[in-house]
């Protein structure tokens, strides 16, 4: 399973080298990867539907309890099949959709990176690796939304999406860490045993809030939904794959995965019910006021995600089954509609539903796919959408509190979604073909086949529900509920559910014939735009920018001396306050060594060098005196037997002086840089800082020293690390990770210096 997850990453890396080759005709070959993964995961259907769970675990960072554990149960399998199956069709579709694009290889690289991270997300059995994969999906989504990186709107949407989902990622990490410390493990399958402990813990509410924060941002729930319509600036294959079928369902996956651990409490269920209900109704109403096909689809996707959250909030096994089935239904019809929209956009260069008419004459197969998807989204029998809608109504009717309200809300949503589906899937193809589209080219087979396959699958699942049962039922089992002897059926007899279905279809169809999308509707909605969460966030964002630029102008004003004095003054304040509170000032002078003559000589040397630095008239003398200061400190290190430190300090000081001399060499001979007021201010700051440090060190001497750590290192340096120089052993072995970080920082600093200075050179060249 590890190989299955890594395959996409490896391919994406391979494209860095072999990009040129894949940019041309062979691009379609990349579809082999999702296809083979799809076949691989299909092989598990039998085993998983028989109740089997496949687990694999690899060590990653065992000292932190982070393992690369993978679990394949019903829930993971459903998502894996969707990711690889729809992934395959999208890969095929892209090879034609972006044919000849100069960065096609890059696109495939991002896409396969996304596929791999999404697979890792749904297969992870460890919360930390789940988080890592979760962030990777956000990052690949960022690259894909901003794929047209020359358009400012694209870049802005990409940043918004990254900011919102990244915030959710932080929230997921926080939730996972608290959950891990309460439950005692980061392994999700082991947490199942301690769900009672978790529910009783005082941290239960914070954990749930953090988890909700992650799920709601990723799955675009109100009020975090606004990044999703913005993300529609990405090429259509991306909208199909990430922003309707898979990535936005990661939040749903998270909720479903944690339902057995955190679910079944009043807080969990009612929050999900309310947020889901608001989202589904709000977004469905929004879809009415759009005329861009992708805009309509984006809002109906948000609404569908709301329905899923609503269903998970109900928490009964019927509702969970409805959610699982609706995931399949939605992925099938929404991906079809997106792909159809992409074809229309590619061939006619417009996505405006008010002008698109009669396209069936020029692209019949696309029209058929669109029609099938529309009736599936409407829930008209014999599509799988009908099954999903029936189950949704059935479970909502069984709600104990306020069933009438919930039924009314879900009914309104379903009617509006039917309308949106009809507008997107049927209206561009019916009616009279306008003149301007008469010469539209027929799309190639590689374009219309993928949506056709998805649409036909939707019908096939509807006619033969037994086909979808082995994929959907194990999802509910994986969430710890049992279904008994349930079966999916098209015909349930005359009952309330059927009447609700008939009402939905009838009212929705009537609405479709009465209300036509128009410019006027779009404008009427835009009047309320300033109240939307997006507009409010933008305002907040602007203020945030203002405050931070003010802050920057005060503290980051580009003068090194101001930075240093800010840091020093802050330290004086902080350390001074803390010393004032706690210092005892009871120093026993007898414990100190006697002061020797050579120590006094060194100190005298230090004082005279300081005097020279401050009062000299020449820069060079100042630098040389600074060097004397550094070397005197070196000598002190030697006296107190720290040869390693002395050596390093000596080399550093030499290099610093050289560096100073190199820079000063080119400066004017001597200028008085600061007036007396500044000098006096600086002198006071320096004196205060020096006194604080002195007091601090005397305080350290006064308190008893804990020698366990130094004793441990001294005793184990040779035994564990085979070294006799303890300092070096600490650097390269005991605290090797720190050293690694430090040298990375050094390298980054060098690159920074190089970039800054060289960039400056080029700019002066330009002038």
């Amino acid at each position, binding site marked *: 399973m590890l190989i299955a997850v890594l395959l996409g990453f490896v391919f994406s890396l391979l494209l860095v080298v072999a990009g040129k080759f894949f940019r041309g005709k062979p691009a379609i070959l990349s579809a082999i990867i999702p296809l083979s993964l799809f076949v691989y995961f299909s092989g598990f259907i039998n085993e998983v539907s028989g109740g089997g769970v496949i687990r694999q675990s690899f060590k990653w960072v065992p000292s932190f309890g982070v393992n690369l554990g993978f679990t394949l149960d019903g829930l993971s399998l459903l998502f894996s099949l969707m990711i690889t199956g729809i992934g395959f069709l999208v890969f095929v579709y892209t090879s034609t959709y972006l044919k000849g694009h100069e960065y096609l290889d890059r696109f495939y690289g991002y896409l396969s990176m996304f596929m791999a991270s999404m697979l890792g997300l749904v297969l992870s059995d460890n919360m930390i690796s789940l988080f890592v994969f979760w962030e990777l999906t956000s990052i690949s989504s960022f690259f894909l939304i901003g794929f047209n990186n020359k358009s400012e709107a694209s870049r802005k949407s990409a940043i918004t999406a990254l900011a919102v989902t990244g915030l959710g990622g932080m929230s997921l990490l926080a939730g996972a860490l608290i959950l891990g410390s309460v439950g005692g493990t980061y392994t999700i399958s082991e947490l199942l045993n301690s769900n009672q402990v978790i529910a009783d813990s005082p941290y239960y509410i914070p954990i749930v809030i953090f988890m909700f924060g992650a799920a709601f941002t990723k799955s675009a729930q109100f009020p975090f939904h606004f990044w999703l319509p913005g993300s529609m600036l990405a090429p259509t294959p991306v909208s199909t794959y990430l922003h309707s079928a898979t990535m936005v369902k990661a939040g749903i996956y998270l909720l479903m995965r944690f339902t057995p651990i955190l679910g079944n409490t009043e807080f969990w269920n009612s929050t999900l019910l309310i947020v889901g209900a608001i989202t589904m109704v709000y977004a469905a109403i929004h879809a009415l006021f759009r005329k861009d096909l992708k805009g309509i689809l984006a809002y109906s996707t948000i609404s569908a995600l709301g329905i899923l959250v609503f269903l998970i909030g109900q928490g009964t096994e019927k509702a969970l089954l409805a959610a699982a089935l609706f995931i399949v239904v939605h992925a099938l019809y929404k991906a079809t509609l997106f792909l159809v929209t992409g074809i229309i956009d590619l061939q006619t260069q417009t996505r405006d539903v008010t002008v698109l008419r009669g396209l069936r004459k020029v692209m019949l197969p696309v029209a058929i796919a669109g029609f099938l998807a529309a009736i599936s989204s409407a829930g008209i029998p014999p599509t799988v959408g009908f099954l999903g809608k029936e189950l949704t109504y059935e479970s909502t009717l069984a709600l104990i509190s306020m069933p009438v309200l919930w039924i009314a809300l879900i009914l309104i949503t379903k009617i509006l979604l039917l309308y949106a589906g009809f507008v997107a899937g049927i209206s561009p193809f019916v009616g009279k073909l306008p003149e301007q589209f008469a010469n539209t080219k027929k799309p190639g087979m590689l374009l219309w086949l993928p949506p056709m396959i998805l649409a036909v699958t939707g019908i096939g699942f509807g006619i033969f529900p037994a086909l979808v049962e082995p994929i959907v039922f194990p999802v509910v089992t994986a969430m710890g509920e049992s279904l008994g002897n349930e079966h999916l059926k098209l015909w349930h007899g005359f009952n309330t559910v059927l009447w609700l279905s008939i009402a939905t279809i009838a009212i929705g169809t009537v609405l479709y014939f009465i209300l036509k999308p128009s410019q006027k509707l779009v404008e009427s909605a835009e009047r309320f735009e300033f109240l939307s969460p997006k507009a409010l966030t933008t305002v907040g964002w602007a203020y945030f920018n203002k405050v931070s630029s003010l802050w920057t102008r005060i503290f980051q004003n580009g003068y090194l001396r101001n930075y240093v004095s800010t840091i020093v003054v802050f330290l004086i304040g902080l350390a001074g306050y803390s010393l004032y509170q706690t210092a005892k000032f009871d120093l026993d002078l007898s414990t100190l060594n006697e002061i020797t003559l050579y120590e006094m000589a060194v100190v005298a040397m230090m004082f005279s060098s300081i005097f020279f630095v401050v009062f000299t008239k020449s820069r060079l003398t100042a630098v040389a005196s600074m060097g004397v200061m550094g070397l005197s400190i070196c000598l002190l290190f030697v006296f107190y037997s720290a040869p390693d430190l002395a050596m390093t300090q000596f080399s550093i000081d030499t290099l610093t002086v050289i560096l100073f001399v*190199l820079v000063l060499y080119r400066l004017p001979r001597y200028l008085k840089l600061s007036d007396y007021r500044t000098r006096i201010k600086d002198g006071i700051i320096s004196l205060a800082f020096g006194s604080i440090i002195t007091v601090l060190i005397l305080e350290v001497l006064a308190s008893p020293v804990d020698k366990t750590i130094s004793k441990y290192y001294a005793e184990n340096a040779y035994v564990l690390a085979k070294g006799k120089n303890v300092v070096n052993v600490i650097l390269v072995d005991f605290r*090797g990770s720190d050293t690694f970080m430090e040298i990375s920082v050094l*390298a980054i600093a060098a690159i920074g*210096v190089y970039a800054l200075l060289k960039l400056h050179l080029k700019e002066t060249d330009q002038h």
Partner: protein
Amino acid sequence: MRTIILKTASSYLLPVLLIFSVFILLRGHYLPGGGFVGGLIASMAYVLHAFANGLSDTKNLLRFHPGFLMPIGLALAFVSGMAPLFLDLPFMTGLWYPGEIPVLGSIGSALFFDIGVYLVVVGVTLTIIFTIVDTI
């Protein structure tokens, strides 16, 4: 600052200082020294050379941009940290060759880590100093 004395001295001092820096690097595990100090000494050798002969001469002597040493050093340190993972041990476990090698003493992953530190330090110092000299 092109004096004939410094010029002559530096061409002898460069190899001596470089060998000394390697010596400091290698003995670090038992006696004062190590990759950090060694790297600083090696960069001083080149800086001295640049002082005496001019930067372009030193660059010709080096043949490649010192910045390339940084990724090589980082990669070496990283790989020596990752190596234990292939033996199913945690990240950065010290691996040691069981026998003794003449002159060098025992060889282990920590030594390669230290060589990585050495290369990074040389790369960083020379990149910064050369860039500044270039620019002003």
